[in-house]
């Protein structure tokens, strides 16, 4: 019997199907995130992780299935709606505009303004200060908020993107392959920010195809393969190698089959 959802779950995605014409990217995925937990979403390339997240963040609407957020059924039809719900995403391409300054990028879409007569003008000073403070709160120190984002290194840009998401995110932070292009030291910084987000009271979905990056920091793992959920395990239940095997082979090893909720269903 399926568990009735409790308010312990922040996000519940039930029986999500997404078809693009004849391509069935998602074929009945079950995915849930608890409050204040870091969950790793794993799967090989093409398994459907990105599509799943795009459904959650409003880029796609599911062909079939229902999403529950904070206990309520919701229909997320635009990135704006996702942001309103409290979901912030750091995409693989970072969603930063290289030619614009850090301050402008930080506040993109929700700029701070001040009234001048009849008009609302941007408050550049305020935006620069607040961005600097917000990033410093998470441990990111920027030299100059007016510097263009394009002038910074990959790791710095990643920090700004994550810092922005942590600052604005209220409930859920989604990191899509945040460390694939980073050095060891920069990767460690990203993991630190992930902890910072959890401490702030948020849940974090950490998407990757590389278990070693996420094993340390996550509480639970969901593995997706060929459009379906392969398994759902807490850190105590699996080792990193087993997760890696599952990702590569697409099959659950014998030892773990007992714990797999999908095979438990009558």
């Amino acid at each position: 019997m399926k568990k009735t959802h409790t308010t312990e779950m922040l996000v519940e995605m039930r029986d999500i199907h997404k078809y693009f014409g004849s391509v069935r990217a998602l074929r009945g995925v079950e995915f849930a995130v608890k409050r204040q937990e870091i969950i790793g979403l794993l799967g090989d390339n093409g398994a459907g992780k990105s599509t799943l997240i795009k459904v959650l963040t409003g880029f796609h609407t599911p062909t079939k299935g229902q999403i529950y957020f904070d206990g309520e059924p919701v229909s997320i039809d635009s990135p704006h709606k996702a942001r309103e719900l409290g979901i912030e995403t750091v995409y693989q391409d970072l969603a930063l505009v290289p030619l614009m300054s850090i301050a402008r990028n930080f506040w993109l879409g929700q700029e701070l303004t001040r009234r001048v007569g009849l008009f609302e003008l941007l408050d550049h000073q305020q935006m620069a200060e607040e961005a600097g403070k917000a990033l410093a709160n998470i441990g990111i120190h920027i030299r100059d908020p007016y510097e263009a984002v394009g002038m910074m290194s990959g790791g710095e840009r990643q920090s700004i993107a994550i810092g922005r998401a942590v600052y604005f995110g209220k409930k859920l932070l989604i990191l899509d392959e945040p460390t694939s292009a980073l050095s060891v030291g920069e990767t460690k910084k990203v993991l630190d920010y992930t902890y910072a987000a959890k401490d702030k009271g948020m849940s974090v979905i950490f998407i990757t195809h590389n278990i070693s990056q996420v094993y340390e920091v996550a509480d639970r793992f969901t593995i997706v393969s060929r459009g379906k959920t392969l398994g759902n395990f807490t850190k105590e239940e699996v080792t990193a190698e087993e997760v890696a095997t599952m990702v590569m082979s697409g099959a659950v090893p014998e030892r773990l089959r007992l714990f797999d909720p999908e095979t438990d269903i009558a």
Partner: protein
Amino acid sequence: MRAHFENKNSRSGLASTIAFYNFGVSATSLFIVALVILGWIALGERANISRRDINTIEISAIVVGIAFTIASVRTAFGIRNRDETSWAWAQWTAFVGLIVGFFILLSTVGPQIIGLISNAQPTVPSEPIWQATLQFGQRSRTIFVNGIMIFALVLFLSNFFIYRMTVANTTYDDKKVEKAQGAFSTAIDDMTPSQFIRHQLAESPSAGAIIGFILILLIFATASDTFRQPPAIASMLTNISTKGIVAIGITILMISGEFDLSVGSMLGAVALFFMLFMTEGVPFIGITQPFNPILSMFLAILVGLLLGFINGFILVRTGIPSFIVTLGTLLIYRAIPLVAIPGGRILRYKDYYAEFPTVTFPTSIMVGLGVILVIVVIFIGIRTLPKYLRQAQLRSRLRGTAGIKFGTTLTILAWVRLVMAALLLLVLLSYFISFTAYHLPNISQPYTVGLFDILNGQWTFTLEKTAGLFVTENPSWWQIDPLDFGRASFRNAIIWWILLVLLFNTILNDTRYGNSVFAVGGNSGAARANGINVNRVKIFNFMLVGFLVSLAAIFEVARNPGVDPLKGLGWELEMVAMTVIGGTLLSGGYGSVLGTILGGLIFAMLNTGLVQVGMNARLFEGVIGVILIVAVILNTTVRRIPTK
């Protein structure tokens, strides 16, 4: 050499040389100033005609000479007293001297070079030190060397060597310079003047345009006497005013990542409709009664908005690149006037009406307008002048403190900015007050003025008429009629253009919408991910172009109330050139409306100047092409932002 400043006992040959040089410069410039004042050296007009009165060139020579004297003395004494900031002074005085020498040289040698390749023959002064006549087939040209040239050459070379010497002995940290930000970063202290200027230029989107503008202005202003006169300036500005209005829209559109090649055709179509509405109504749907001119204006603007919307709509719906879409609409919209005016004749207002349209309204509106303008100027003054004053005072205070050697230049610039802003506001204030006072006596009577004159009429622009306070010969300043349309051809469209530029510059840089425009052009995926409706922004920008095109069309018709089917032909490429020269990136995401003004002015100056200098008109296009390429190269190399 550093030791010279740190250790009281060491003696540096270099420092002594420079100190001595500066003493020499100060003495020489003082001497020259005295000669000019006494009349022994004649400059400018006086060099050609014998007159006793002093002229502007001589006054500026005197002022510059005195400034040089003071600066050099200060430098020399500073070095002698081992004052650290004097090393910066030495660099900057050498740098300025080098620049001044270069430009004087340019103004004397430049015209001769232009004369060699064109029809102009610069006037040969009465007693050149050397001259020679060269034969080119049927033309003969005289080249000469005169005293001023030699002076300029000496000035340039000596300062150049001194500059190199001082720069070689300055230690500066490349990395610090790269990351220097703000006016008080200590890295700026160690920058040489050329690095400092490059640093300042790198921050601006239109660095190349600024350099180009100054160069071209100087070359033409010195090469041709008529270039400097009001009629030439007036015709340049008038020419560029309507084009500039359209270019504002093109700039904003380009920043958001799209092109509009149909603007020329849109202009022709809207101009046609405007004229048609006023003269015949809308004959092809059966309305044969012409409309009121003001109604026609609004309807024409609607047409422009519609044409722009069509461009944007096709782009958004089909996903075809805007280049192709607008290439198509360029041809489609051009067909409209060709079809509507059969036979290709010119649709003239005067063919239908004896008089141009007038509007009548109570004079109290004019008075009210004047009062509002006065209040606006006062409001602006109250907000900005104290801020500038505070900043200038702040810089003055910080100037002498340890580590801020370049504070002097920045301080002077801050004070200059304050003074110029105050002067400008004062001029505007007096103009608006005299405007109000002029209309006040007639406040109860109706006021009639030509509609086309309001839109794009001519006026004279003399200091007496605008700065009522500075009148010398006129009757009381409140008796000046600010709407007096006199001889010169400055036109109102110039004012509308400037106002629109200021408006849209603010919108682009200081509003949320402006930020979204930059985002859509810089990375539309990022913009979309942050909740910006990319399609809406693009359609809106296309409609904005349509709106500005219709304004330009109305002003063009007001200036010349006759519309031919080929009106606006060729505008689109000029718009793109102006925008790109001004520093806007073709790929979007970066640019400035103010830069486009510079691009436009460069165009206008080249247009008028080349003709006045006597160059073959066909070469004009070739020159524009060269400038375009050079400007883009300059813009991309001088700027620090990566263009990828």
